[in-house]
């Protein structure tokens, strides 16, 4: 990651995301924002935008995800650059055809005649007893649906730059953000991030941990802790998932020979599975131990806080698996 410059503004993650949108809205009048209660900005990423850009460009929508995501597709095809806040990303399921069969297919099905410069923002992850329908990380579903770019920033810096990159992209991009990181502070450095980037920090030599969102945070905390014990973990924050930053991933794994993939999605057909499979194919000979996956087991997220904590990979679980792999 970029080095910290003393002059860089410090922001929290959700406001950094909002700032990323605002920056684009200032220079590009085609950028509009809609979704449920985006004026109040329930989820954070759109808070304050209506004050600067007015209600003509920041529109509150009815609870009609299929229609307002579909309308955003049409608006994108028609020359706007809509940014849609869908609140919890798992609400995408009620509009999933518009994601999978429409946004993700139309460019291809028309032989490239039409571009869909559309951004959809949604929270992803467990943030304390929101239960099964409001706590998921459905990144694997967006990746498997296909035709969608996906980013999942874990720091304000990432949030700012990846949101900008998403809005500037001519493709549909899903921007996930973790509700438990909304208030995380960090500085916005000048060096931009682009779709397809990964952030390697800290650099290490013993085990590579690949993670995203809250899991990347936890992985960095584990790395810090284990460094005190003489084990140097390299954390690859896979903050863009499509395009997948295979080069950075394989470079790290080739160096360390050991990899743990941590995922807040559920295990089966997860991003963790994709990473493990892809590493196996691309770096099998460099592996000194099997790639291990740590993900939510194949259960919905339970409500009770202690149960939620039991299924979401904790720092302890990450550390334990890292140590296991280091010894294997």
């Amino acid at each position: 990651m970029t080095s910290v410059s003393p002059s860089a503004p410090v922001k929290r993650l959700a406001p950094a995301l909002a700032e990323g949108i605002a920056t684009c809205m200032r220079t590009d009048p085609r950028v509009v924002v809609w979704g449920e209660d985006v004026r109040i900005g329930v989820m954070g990423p759109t808070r304050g935008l209506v004050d600067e850009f007015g209600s003509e460009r920041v529109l509150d929508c009815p609870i009609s995800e299929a229609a307002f995501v579909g309308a955003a597709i049409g608006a994108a095809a028609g020359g706007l650059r809509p940014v849609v806040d869908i609140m919890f990303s798992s609400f995408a399921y009620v509009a999933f055809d518009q994601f999978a069969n429409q946004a993700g297919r139309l460019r291809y099905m028309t032989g490239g005649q039409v571009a869909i410069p559309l951004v959809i923002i949604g929270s992803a992850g467990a943030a304390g007893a929101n239960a099964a329908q409001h706590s998921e990380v459905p990144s694997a579903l967006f990746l498997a649906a296909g035709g969608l770019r996906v980013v999942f920033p874990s720091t304000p810096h990432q949030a700012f730059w990846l949101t900008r990159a998403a809005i500037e992209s001519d493709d549909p991009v899903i921007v996930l953000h973790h509700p438990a990181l909304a208030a995380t502070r960090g500085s916005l450095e000048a060096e931009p991030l682009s779709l397809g980037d990964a952030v390697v920090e800290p650099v290490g030599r013993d085990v590579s941990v690949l993670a995203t969102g809250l899991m990347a945070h936890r992985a960095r905390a584990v790395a810090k802790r284990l460094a005190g014990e003489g084990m140097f973990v390299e954390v690859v924050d896979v903050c863009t998932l499509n395009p997948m930053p295979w080069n950075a991933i394989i470079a790290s794994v080739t160096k360390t020979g050991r990899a743990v993939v941590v995922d807040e999605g559920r295990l089966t057909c997860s991003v963790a599975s994709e990473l493990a499979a892809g590493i196996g194919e691309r770096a099998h000979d460099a592996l000194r131990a099997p790639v291990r996956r740590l993900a939510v087991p194949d259960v919905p997220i339970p409500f009770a806080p202690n149960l939620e904590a039991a299924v979401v990979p904790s720092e302890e679980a990450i550390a334990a698996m890292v140590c296991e792999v280091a010894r294997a």
Partner: protein
Amino acid sequence: MQWLRTMVRIRLFEQMLADLYKAGRLVGVVHLSIGQEATAVGVCSALKDGDQITSTHRGHHHMVARGLDPQKMFAEILGRAGGYCRGKGGSMHVSAPAQGAMGANGIVGGGIAHAVGLAFAAKRLGSGGISAAFFGDGAANQGVLFESLNLAALWQAPVLFVCENNGYTEFTPTDAVTAGESIAARAAPFGIPAVEVDGDDVVAVNRLAGEATARARSGRGPTFIECRTARWRGHHEGEESYAKPYREPPAAADPIDRLERVLRDAGLAADGLRAAMEAEEEAGLAAALAAAEAEPEPPPERALEDVFA
């Protein structure tokens, strides 16, 4: 009389949750139904054992009105082992299918079609049961409602569609996101009898619900009831932390006061009756809460259970 007691119980139950929330003793997002008691009680009092309801993120009043045990509700909302859903559902998902409360739902509109299916099953199995789907004005903009209306009309399913129009879709006034004059009018083109009612008048709600259940039980299919009511509190507890002021103060037509007045006018409620009820209910709920809070957390291995049969 039972109506008054149930409404009082709902009000107190919810107020206790508000207090718990404020005291930092609740987890997750909590949506309260204070002010909407008459709708739940008016409809549920027209249902029988063996009937089913589906509910919403804001569903405690439906559950209490359906006769659920406050202790097990508290336990669920607190994430304790003895909750209805073994601590895995929480505030938005309290349910007790065996007691005719198939489920609340965190997805707006998510349970409406379930009610159609429950009604179809009851009809096909000849159980004599019917079902009622509760949903908000916000859900009236979810496509699945219209699909469900069509299906219910085609199948002549014995189901009540109960829209609780409380004037807000989260933080937005209903009319800002809901085109047209009336939600009930959206059901009529499907050939479904559709009525609007003062949802704070439990007598009126019950009368219409009674007609609707009679229609359903006699094989004459679904009914749509739009209950106009008011949400006294915010969308969820704790919203002040980020939501700028956005609401008109609700018109103070307390549905409990109104019922009390009706009972009084009919000579059915003696002085002090309500106070006595409140005291009784408060004591009962306090005991229920204490018992729920004394319960342990669910054992961790439970997190891995109940996915598949």
